[in-house]
């Protein structure tokens, strides 16, 4: 009885599926393959820069325990100083600008979603993995976009979800590329891009019927040429690029990131990733009684200011993709290490007055010893403001911004 109902339901579904008349005359394997090629070239960059971000966090990476699912660990370098600015800017920036390409690619293959399931077990299984591919990329896009806009409506750990989701997507992506690469190459060769770019609307005709069933058997007349569709998607990419790049620029151009939180800064200031008020630190804790705990010694702010000062132009780059370059001055971390009696440290742990998940940041030996690695007291010629970490903050070349600890309470240099 149940089987009978199931068969009927399936037949109804199948006939309903067949009743959808796909109208677009430009949908077809060539167009799909163009979108596919763009994603094939760009998504590996998003994937690798994302996985590099995990490495950049060093032993402070979240999620901490990922088994073997990570790039080979290496000490994140301090040079070039813009390294993290570049990798994370690319990860977030490319991730945003590829959204129209992903949506166009999904549009181009959507008739397949409504085709009857194959009876062949292998094909059925391959189709099932598309859940990992499409679900994976949409999950990464949604969680990533919400994170850079500080909207934690999903209520779970962004880091863990985005990291695990990335590997789910990678699984689907690698298999999809392996299975579809020959089809993509064949389809791209079936038409000349140069000819398509010269074909106006009036001369636009559907691609020949394909075995994948993307080409509509009974389409509407065209309202857009193939080059028009490519220009439309390219225009979407350009629009989003124009609305994103500003969050990595200083000066008036930052404002071009019109709709992103990091397109805005208070007048005369540069962005922070946490305000003093939000840190929950009592003003007394960073007032006149504050001193830096180096283990063997404690230094007041006046004592720190009396030590040799060094100035460096260094970027702060955040995991959310925004970055800014400023002129910092303060005491070299390696000088502090020598004062603490550990002139050749194996690493360091910086502790903030603030409590919370990023209140402790690990530094490697290379990060402590870089001549531009500072415990900064001043920025752009003035004392740090409370929002920028007064009385003292860490600034290390190429270190993720959140590990450039503000409101430093203690630095422990390990032997």
């Amino acid at each position: 009885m149940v089987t009978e109902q199931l068969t009927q339901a399936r037949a109804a579904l199948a006939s309903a599926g067949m009743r959808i008349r796909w109208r677009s005359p430009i949908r077809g394997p060539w167009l799909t393959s163009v979108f596919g090629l763009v994603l094939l070239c760009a998504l590996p960059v998003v994937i690798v820069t994302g996985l590099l971000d995990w490495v950049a966090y060093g032993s402070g990476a979240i999620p901490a325990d990922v088994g073997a699912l990570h790039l080979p660990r290496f000490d994140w370098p301090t040079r070039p100083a813009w390294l993290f600015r570049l990798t994370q800017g690319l990860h977030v920036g490319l991730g945003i600008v590829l959204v129209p390409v992903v949506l166009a690619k999904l549009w181009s293959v959507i008739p397949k979603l409504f085709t009857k399931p194959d009876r062949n077990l292998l094909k059925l299984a391959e189709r099932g993995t598309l859940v990992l591919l499409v679900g994976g990329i949409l999950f990464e896009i949604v969680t990533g976009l919400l994170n850079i806009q500080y909207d934690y409506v999903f209520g779970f750990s962004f880091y863990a979800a985005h990291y695990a989701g990335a590997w789910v997507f990678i699984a689907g992506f690698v298999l999809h590329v392996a299975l579809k690469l020959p089809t993509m190459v064949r389809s791209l060769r079936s038409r000349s891009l140069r000819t398509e770019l010269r074909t106006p609307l009036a001369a636009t005709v559907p691609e020949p019927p394909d075995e994948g069933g993307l080409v509509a058997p009974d389409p509407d007349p065209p309202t857009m040429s193939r080059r028009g569709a490519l220009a439309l998607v390219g225009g979407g990419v350009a629009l989003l690029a124009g609305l994103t790049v500003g969050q990595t620029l200083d000066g008036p151009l930052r404002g071009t990131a019109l709709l992103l939180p990091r397109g805005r800064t208070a007048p005369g200031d540069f962005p922070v990733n946490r305000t003093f008020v939000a840190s929950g630190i009592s003003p007394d804790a960073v007032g006149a009684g504050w001193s830096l705990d180096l283990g063997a010694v404690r230094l007041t702010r006046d004592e720190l200011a009396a030590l040799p000062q060094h100035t460096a132009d260094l970027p702060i780059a955040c995991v959310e993709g925004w970055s800014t370059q400023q002129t910092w001055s303060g005491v070299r971390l390696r000088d502090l290490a020598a004062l603490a009696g550990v002139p050749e440290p194996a690493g360091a742990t910086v502790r903030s007055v603030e409590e919370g998940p990023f209140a402790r940041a690990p530094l490697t030996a290379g990060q402590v010893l870089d001549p531009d690695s500072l415990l900064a007291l001043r920025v752009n010629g003035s004392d740090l403001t409370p929002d920028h970490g007064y009385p003292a903050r860490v600034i290390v070349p190429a270190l993720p911004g959140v590990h450039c600890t503000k409101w430093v309470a203690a630095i422990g240099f390990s032997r």
Partner: protein
Amino acid sequence: MSAVRMLGVLACVALAGWAATIIVRDPTLHPSIVPMLVWFAGALLLHDLVLFPLYAAADRVLALLPATRVPLVNHVRIPLLGAGLTLLLYLPGIIRQGEPVVLGASGLGQEPFLARWLWLVLAMTAVSALVWVVRVTRRSAAGG
């Protein structure tokens, strides 16, 4: 050949399952497992069964536009897609969702984003309309 492909499918599923262990091995993440799965499936279903039908239906409505010598369809479609794309991506700022966190992170709120988005949509619409008028004028100049 099909044995190799089956191996590929199994490897893919195994890797995805392995990825899931990142969540499973951390007991503090266990309460998040169901919400994560819901968001994963939700993203997929919302795209396939809500977003796609919605924009496909909106596109059908464009077929009802009056026939003009220079067709209106793309001059409506393109700013509409631009508005939809930016709304989709920047929704949290536009509807001011998560404002306390934005404020804590940046010291600034979300108040300008709705107006900025509306201006952006207006600008895209105006440019599209202007291009249409130029095309109409050029066609009548050329065709008499």
